[in-house]
């Protein structure tokens, strides 16, 4: 009889249970993969949940075209190592096909456009469940979302009419045209993710560890110099020792100055940090008080 459980075992068990529910309930689930630590953790948990079978979930990458090269390389290595099916759909193609206006400005963000590409891909393949690495501790709108989050025919979240979700009875029943976003690591914090990565020896893109990079300082945030952002004469390019706390688009993800070269050092750094994960690294959340809620209403995961 196990009287005292380890919190990481409890979190792992909850996630495995959710993955098995996904496999048991849906006909066409897909795993949304970004190359970041959270979706990499999802792959690890999916493989554990369905061992000895290989993970049956294809990976869907919504490619904004503003990727870190290291994240793409990591994605391709992971896919060939485990033999996953990878589907890539490009925001660039959506813009061309639908004659949309690409974003402009100093840091052109395709954050809103990528929801359109995602919804198109869901329709194209008929996915009934999209598995995402969203965590409730990341952001205040995410903190309110169910583990099985029903999206209507337009892919929109209905925050004021969420289904009751009791016990472990996740209700994934939907009508045609609707889909479910499932968040198996809802209850994990950033530190939980890292402690588990340490315990399970999960490989991550090199971006998460300290490296030299050319950056500009924009309102106190370090943005990597890349072809995707537009520099002006006031920008001063500096070489900094940095790492990424989150991996998103190069246009909206800030680096942090860091000497943390391995997982243990990253854990120490986060534990002593006085600023939240998204607060420190995302410039897209800070436009308004409800930026994430608004994106979710438009189909964002």
């Amino acid at each position, binding site marked *: 009889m196990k009287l005292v*459980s380890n*919190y990481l075992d409890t979190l792992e068990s909850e996630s495995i*249970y959710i993955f098995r529910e996904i496999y048991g309930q849906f006909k066409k689930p897909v795993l949304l993969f970004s190359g970041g630590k959270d979706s990499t953790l999802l792959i690890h948990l999916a493989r554990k*949940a369905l061992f000895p*079978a290989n993970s049956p979930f294809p990976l869907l990458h919504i490619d904004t075209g503003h990727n870190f090269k290291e994240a793409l390389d990591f994605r391709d290595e992971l896919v060939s190592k485990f033999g996953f099916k990878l589907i890539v759909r490009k925001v660039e193609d959506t813009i061309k096909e639908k004659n949309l206006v690409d974003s402009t400005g100093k840091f052109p963000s395709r954050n809103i456009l990528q929801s359109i590409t995602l919804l198109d891909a869901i329709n194209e393949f008929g996915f009934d469940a999209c598995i995402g690495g969203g965590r409730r*501790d990341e952001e*205040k709108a995410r903190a309110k979302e169910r583990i099985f989050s029903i999206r209507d025919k337009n892919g929109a979240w209905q*925050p004021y009419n969420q*289904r009751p979700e009791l016990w*472990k009875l996740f209700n994934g029943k939907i009508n045609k045209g609707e889909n479910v976003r499932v968040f198996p690591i809802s209850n994990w914090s950033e530190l939980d993710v890292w402690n588990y990565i340490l315990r399970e020896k999960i490989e991550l893109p090199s971006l998460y560890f300290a490296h030299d990079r050319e950056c500009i300082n924009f309102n106190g945030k370090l943005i990597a110099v890349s072809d995707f952002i537009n520099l002006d004469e006031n920008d001063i390019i500096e070489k900094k020792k940095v790492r990424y706390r989150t991996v998103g688009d190069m246009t909206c993800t800030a680096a942090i100055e860091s000497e943390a070269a391995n997982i243990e050092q990253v854990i120490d750094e986060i534990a002593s940090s006085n600023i939240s994960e998204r607060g420190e690294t995302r410039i897209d959340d800070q436009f308004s008080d409800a930026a994430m809620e608004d994106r979710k209403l438009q189909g964002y995961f």
Partner: protein
Amino acid sequence: MDILRFITAGSIDDGKSTLIGRLLYDIGQIKSDVIQSVSKSNKAVNTINLAHITDGLRSEREQGITIDIAYKYFTTPNRKYIITDAPGHFQYTKNLVTGASEVDAMIILIDANNGITEQTRRHSLVASFLNIPNVLVAINKMDDVAYSEEQFTSIKNQYLVIAEKLKLQNISFFPISALLGDNVNLASSNMIWYKDNTLMQCLETINAKITNNHITRFSVQCVIETKNFEKGFAGKLISGNLKIGDSIEINPERKSAIIKNIIIGKSYKNEAMAGDDICLYFENSIEAKRGDLISKSANDSPLLFSNKLETTLCWLNEEKQLQSGEEYLLRINSFETKCSITSILHKIDIQSFEKNTEKNLSGINDFLGVIIETAEEISYDPFSILPETGCGILIDLKTNYTSAAFIIEK
């Protein structure tokens, strides 16, 4: 380090969100950018609106109320805490039930100015319905009543009457001020008459829920097939234990099988314990399917089989009334079958907690005694014997909305 899940419940403006904000703030686990953002969205300059830390939706911040549950997390060297901040309004009780279903403790807030309200009764009824193992009654806004011991004791005594009627377990009482921090994390110097634990000290020491007893129950979530065509049956060992060679019964079909292999995580094991996520293999290619409930053939408490269940049910669908005779999809663990409510026995009266047998008993958030008849025979345990195999939901066949939660009485 283990995990403790708790929920805060109370009437509107009793200070639930403020209490959570206070706990997080005092423990030092609100990050500086979050403090900045809640200060920004509050009109009063230079004060932190502790409630805005959990009110994550725009309408909640605009209206200053909590509509749906929010989850927050913090850790102490001892525990990881998962907090559910639940709405106080009557109309959002369905969200409270959602948030409370898996917790180890419920904190019920009572405003010291107002005492026990109908919502206090309703939340206590939810705690009783879900059999929540610890109830912490926090009498808040003690600063408004001059930290009066008399006021605290009077409310405490009134609440004990409710607790006895509802058979609530492990009740403790705390005189607090969430706004000012008295007896939340640190002992209050304003109430030297109170000598017991602070709320946080109590949370650090109460037991997390453990499901385990002599009954062996395993629920099949999915079938895992590999290239050599051998099928494994994956799911959670809800209670008890299983080992290789055990004779088991697959229910409700009542098929017998012998365990050949057990996989936990990525390793082959000889035995599994309650809580393990396992994959089972049977001798002689015996098969099970999603929804099956597995018990041991010998020395196990027998499962019950029936297609007629006496239940207590909480109605959760605002858009539709509960209709006697209407068809629903019933779900217990991963087992599903069509069913209908064939008889409404009574409604639980919120004032007296007595069973009221008058008709017209089908509103949202009501607790009702009903008979559910299922299309297929189901296997189960009464909720009082093993909660995990004795509770379920009813799903609307047209909208798929989770319309009711029920526990099986017998």
